[in-house]
């Protein structure tokens, strides 16, 4: 375990050095994300110009939900996104070989190579929006709610990661698989919508099997809408995300067995 920490800290340092040598790119990527984030909030402001609530969600609660999803999505993108998105390319070019022979877990090797600092900044922006919404709602969460929220964010990141890894593993069969990145964005697109809008069957499928609906909704509910009953919410998030994480790891290993190197 310690070895993995050491390897990771070296990779982290290298990424930071690389990142800071392209300053303009760094700022532009940040701008891209800020634009998308603002667009989402504007969209919901337009909707809330016409209705007072969606299900049991009021305007600032939804803004808090979008901010929460921003934190989760950006932290995922900071640590894993670029790496996992690059897997189809590694498969196509045969560069995956050199990672498989490393004396570390293959999934660790392909998942942690790069780190994106700009996404961390954007996660902080998401955090600011969450704090601002809390002020608008006149809610001061107690220590317990805050702790559960932070833990839940971690499980949310795990769901993002698992879905992306599963999609990337498909590239062992379909060689030109860049479209899978779009798959990830499409799946997670619904994660920032309030859960109250989804019909029952949809909620079961996307709350347990491909648990994208709970990624941000459960953390946000834990923070402001658990009504003293955080247990069942936390249980669903922990169980569903653990299952999807191990399924994706299983699928990754299964896919790896189908890997026939492109080189030599």
């Amino acid at each position: 375990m310690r070895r993995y920490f050491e390897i990771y800290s070296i990779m982290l340092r290298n990424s930071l050095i690389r990142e800071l040598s392209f300053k303009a790119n760094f700022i532009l990527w940040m701008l891209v994300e800020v634009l998308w984030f603002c667009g989402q909030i504007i969209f919901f402001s337009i909707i809330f110009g016409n209705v007072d609530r969606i299900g049991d969600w009021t305007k600032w609660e939804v803004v808090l939900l979008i901010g929460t999803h921003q934190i989760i999505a950006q932290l995922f993108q900071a640590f894993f996104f670029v790496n996992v998105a690059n897997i189809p390319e590694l498969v196509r070019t045969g560069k995956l070989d050199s990672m498989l022979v490393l004396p570390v877990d293959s999934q660790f090797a392909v998942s942690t190579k790069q780190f994106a600092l700009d996404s961390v900044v954007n996660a902080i922006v998401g955090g600011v929006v969450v704090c601002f919404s809390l002020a608008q709602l006149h809610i001061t969460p107690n220590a317990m709610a805050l702790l559960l929220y932070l833990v839940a964010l971690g499980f949310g990141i795990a769901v993002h990661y698992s879905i992306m890894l599963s999609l990337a593993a498909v590239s062992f069969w379909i060689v030109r698989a860049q479209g899978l990145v779009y798959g990830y964005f499409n799946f997670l697109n619904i994660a920032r919508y309030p859960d109250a809008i989804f019909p029952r069957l949809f909620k079961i499928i996307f709350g347990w099997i491909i648990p994208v609906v709970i990624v941000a909704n459960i953390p946000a509910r834990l923070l402001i809408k658990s009504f003293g009953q955080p247990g069942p919410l936390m249980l669903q998030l922990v169980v569903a995300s653990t299952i999807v994480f191990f399924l994706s790891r299983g699928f990754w290993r299964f896919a790896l067995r189908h890997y026939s190197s492109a080189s030599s």
Partner: protein
Amino acid sequence: MTRARVDKYISVFNIGLQNTFVYRWNYFLRALFGLIPLAGTVFLWSAVFKERGHGLHGYDYGSMIYYYLLTILVSNLVTPTEDEWQIAADIREGQINALLTKPMSYLAYRFSIFLSGRLVYTFVTLPPIGLIFLYFHNYIIPPDDPMIYLYAFISTLMAAFIQFFITYSLAMMAFWILEISTVVFIVYSFEYFLGGQMFPIDIMPAGIQAVMKWMPFYYELFCPVAIFLERLRGPALFQALAIQTGWLFLTWAAARGMWRRGLSHYQAVGG
């Protein structure tokens, strides 16, 4: 135009067809995954209309769904998918050297490939889209007036040209900068929010709409859809078509200008 001049672009079109066919799984998966956000949108608006109990800026639940179905159809027909990355790679990796020596305009060459790409894309994504249209057939009310079809067709055609010229101009940035993806995504986010993909422009406050009407994004997707839905009528319709024609020529000029300036900046590397 002589026959030979047209023939060579038809050959490019054919080669483009074969090349994009490699991406068929990509396209199919993209269309399939695209159903998930659509479901989200449908459920969201369903909840909004249920809460509101009555219409919203002239839309009801059915016409809102119809709006999104049409945007999907039109965007499949007119939105370039891989073109900007291919053009940028052509420039970065020096592939254009080979094309510069040929008696062929690069703009027309890329346009032929764009056309073939759209054809394959539309064809591959037809089954899932057809199924959605079938599923929501109750909300689909085609216009009675045959002229509407003509106007919507012209507007869709112009939207395709505008989208292509914008994509082409953006990709030309590769003459100056190594990595164009940031610029592409910044413009893409404007297209997504201001072009009507996220929500119909005409539910926005009137003041904002008046500004948006003068922007090119409005004419990349929203305009043809609004014409077909008969939300743009009478003088407003003709004004929109006129502004769209203006943007068509402006973006065309931009595409040609960017190419000329880029080329004068370009130094061929390698042999």
